[in-house]
């Protein structure tokens, strides 16, 4: 019943629009009942959007091709999992998912923090309502998932390249990240709008920000793994605008997470933080705009989809409104605390921020450069990987170094002597690693060598932190060393969880440098029985095989792999030909060696009629560290996110103290 779905969306639109307008008025005039009404509207909108989502899901599940959306994205033979996942594979469905997540977590964030942040919530509700109104507007008037048509016999089906488990996980996780950034934005702007906010909203929304950031980061890596295995060109990140679309908000959100710590502890950088959080949110909108509008690509034209213009307009409005609000509240934001020394933890956080934001701006510049150059010079010029790689190294290396130095520097003012002393061991370890690598022949990539030296430095510094902390804890409380360790981490979740996340990033760097700087490639035509040598591996073409699957014909080349005389089995690489869609997909063979964390990557490009095959073989050293880093990243984030009973009690006490005054 598409009518019900449309009705639910119209009702949702009405509700969020009401939440925006009535909520805004209630906050401005201080009307309690009206605000409660607006908050109820926000909650109700979630129920309404959920209903619409369920209608679409039901239509997908029963192959109701009278829904245009169902007809254009699924087919009868599509497995159920992918049929349901096509909820988010198209424009309209993904917008509905966005609105669902937005109203859902928006309602949850407001509901959970209602009593805690009384001055901020009145403004957060209308802001969330306004943002939701945009998406609801699109869904009702521009891109409805409930358009109907005469039901065809069968649907158009899903592109075979999308039919893999990643399609089930990547978009929802990505959206949780993107949309999640709305929460800190709404609360930050709400705090500004209310004009008399304390810092409690930061503490209250910290976990939301952290969770969104984690989802976004993990989704980016998941997307990279997807590209690595399915698109299969041998690399893991192509600096494609669509990839960069998610990277930019993540970088800015990382900067925000760090500098907001400075605001919490030192009451500094408040203007900067307001700018950062607005920037992260605008970039997340920009990110989704990039992937939908098709405006940035080699085929640049707005006619790809008119929805691009809507998004651009909305981003402009959000950016303008945020800027206006920040400027309006500038006197309030100006902090009384000053940066005392350029060698202090505050300064280290500031440098970290500068590099992260600089890198984000670099990526942004690279993404919009084709448009800018076309406007200025008449010819669109695209920048390639060398541009991004250059700046990734230029900004990335100092960032890595800061990860090691930052924790060792004291707040306020650190004496260079004290810093030097703390750095002695990690620096020594780094030097040793550097020399070892140099001797082992890592000279081929100087940037890589420097990167690895820095990586060793940071890992040693982190290890030292854990050791010293455990030692101190043990000295205080006695007991066993493992107990001291768990107690240490348990009592300082933010700090040590953060260290684990840093270690994950360093691991990522090690893997990225490995695959980027120290890989080998070999390609050529192989007749049956012929061998090719790539790095340490020898591959021999044994022959080709054909197999018929349910909806495709599979053609594979079988190659025997050996290394140093040792037989390592065979790999199958080739192509699938899908009948219904008249499409070919390349199925690469990836042989992962977990001990060396490297991959042997085989692409069978072309099967010739004479029985020979054209293969491209790549050795990717240390690439599996990237995926491992993803898991470690989530583990570290979980440690930081874990609810802390003592912190809750502290917050409760503070709330009571404040509440007591109000009641007196």
């Amino acid at each position: 019943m598409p009518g019900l779905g449309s009705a639910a969306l119209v009702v949702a639109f009405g509700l969020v629009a009401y939440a925006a307008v009535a909520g805004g008025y209630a906050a401005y005039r201080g009307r309690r009942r009206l605000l409660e009404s607006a908050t109820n509207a926000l909650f109700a909108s979630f129920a309404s959007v959920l209903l619409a989502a369920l209608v679409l899901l039901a239509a997908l599940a029963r192959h109701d091709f009278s829904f245009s959306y169902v007809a254009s994205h699924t087919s009868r033979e599509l497995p159920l999992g992918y049929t349901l996942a096509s909820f988010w594979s198209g424009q309209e469905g993904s917008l509905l998912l966005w609105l669902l997540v937005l109203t859902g977590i928006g309602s949850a964030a407001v509901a959970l923090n209602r009593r805690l942040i009384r001055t901020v919530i009145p403004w957060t509700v209308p802001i969330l309502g306004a943002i939701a109104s945009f998406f609801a507007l699109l869904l009702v008037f521009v891109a409805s998932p409930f358009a109907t048509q005469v039901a065809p016999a069968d649907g158009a089906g899903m592109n075979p390249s999308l039919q893999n488990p990643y399609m089930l996980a990547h978009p929802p996780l990505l959206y949780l990240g993107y949309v999640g950034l709305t929460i800190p934005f709404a609360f930050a702007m709400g705090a500004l709008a209310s004009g008399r906010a304390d810092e409690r909203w930061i503490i209250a929304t910290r976990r939301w920000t952290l969770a969104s950031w984690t989802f976004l980061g993990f989704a980016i890596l998941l997307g990279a793994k997807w590209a690595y295995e399915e698109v299969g060109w041998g690399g893991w990140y192509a600096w494609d605008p669509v990839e960069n679309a998610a990277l930019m908000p993540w970088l800015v959100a990382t900067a925000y997470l760090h500098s907001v710590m400075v605001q919490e502890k030192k009451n500094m950088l408040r203007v900067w933080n307001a700018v950062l959080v607005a920037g992260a949110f605008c970039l997340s909108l920009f990110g989704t705009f990039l992937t939908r509008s098709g405006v940035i690509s080699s085929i640049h034209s707005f006619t790809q989809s008119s929805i691009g213009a809507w998004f651009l307009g909305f981003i402009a409005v959000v950016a303008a409104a945020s800027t206006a609000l920040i400027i309006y509240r500038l006197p309030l934001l100006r902090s009384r605390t000053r940066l005392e020394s350029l060698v202090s933890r505050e300064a280290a956080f500031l440098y970290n921020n500068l590099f992260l934001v600089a890198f984000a701006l670099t990526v942004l510049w690279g993404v919009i450069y084709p448009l800018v150059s076309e406007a200025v010079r008449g010819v669109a010029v695209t920048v390639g990987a060398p541009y991004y790689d250059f700046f990734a190294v230029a900004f990335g290396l100092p960032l890595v170094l800061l990860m090691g130095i930052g924790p060792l520097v004291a707040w306020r003012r650190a004496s260079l002597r004290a810093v030097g002393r703390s750095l002695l061991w990690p620096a020594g370890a780094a030097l040793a690693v550097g020399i070892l690598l140099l001797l082992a022949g890592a000279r081929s990539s100087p940037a890589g060598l420097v990167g690895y030296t820095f990586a060793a430095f940071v890992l040693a510094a982190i290890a030292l932190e854990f050791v010293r902390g455990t030692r101190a804890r043990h000295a205080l409380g006695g007991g066993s060393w493992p107990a001291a360790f768990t107690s240490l981490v348990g009592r300082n979740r933010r700090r040590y969880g953060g260290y684990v996340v840093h270690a994950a990033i360093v691991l990522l760097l090690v893997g990225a440098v490995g695959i980027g700087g120290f890989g080998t490639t070999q390609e050529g035509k192989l007749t049956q029985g012929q061998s090719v040598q790539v790095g340490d591996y020898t591959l021999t073409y044994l022959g080709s095989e054909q197999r018929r699957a349910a909806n495709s014909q599979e053609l594979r080349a079988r190659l025997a792999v050996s290394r140093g005389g040792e037989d390592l089995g065979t790999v199958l690489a080739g192509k699938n030909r899908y009948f219904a869609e008249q499409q070919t997909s390349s199925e690469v063979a990836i042989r992962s060696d977990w001990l060396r964390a490297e991959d042997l990557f085989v692409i069978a490009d072309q099967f010739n009629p004479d029985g020979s095959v054209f293969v491209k073989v790549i050795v990717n050293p240390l690439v599996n560290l990237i995926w491992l880093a993803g898991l470690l990243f989530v583990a570290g984030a979980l440690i930081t996110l874990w609810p802390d009973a003592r912190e809750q009690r502290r917050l409760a006490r503070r709330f009571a103290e404040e509440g007591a005054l109000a009641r007196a």
Partner: protein
Amino acid sequence: MARRRSPARLVIALSVAAALAIFLVYTALAGGTPSLRPSQVAGHDGRVSVAGRVVGQPSGTARGPEGLRFTIKDVQGTATLPVVYRGSVPDLFKTGRDVSVEGSLQNGVFVADKLVTKCPSKYTNKQS
């Protein structure tokens, strides 16, 4: 005694200016590759990338001696360009798809070594 002007602001301003300068200069000098339409290719020597729609029937094989031969047409226009491509062919390549090829114009034929196919849905590009 509190400082009149915090060094933080100065540091931020200088860093922003420096970063901006660096990448403006980089992109201006090192440049990237011009992205053109088939109608614009004629004047350009050197490495460019051309975007268009595959028309007609492709012939040959990308890994064979003669390469993959096909014609691309302006997405919004009629100008066409013959292309010879050698390399890996992305999965989505087919007549009617929008592609982007990178290489240079030689004797009226565009010799390409990079081929990217734009996904017909809103999803990611496929690389080769």
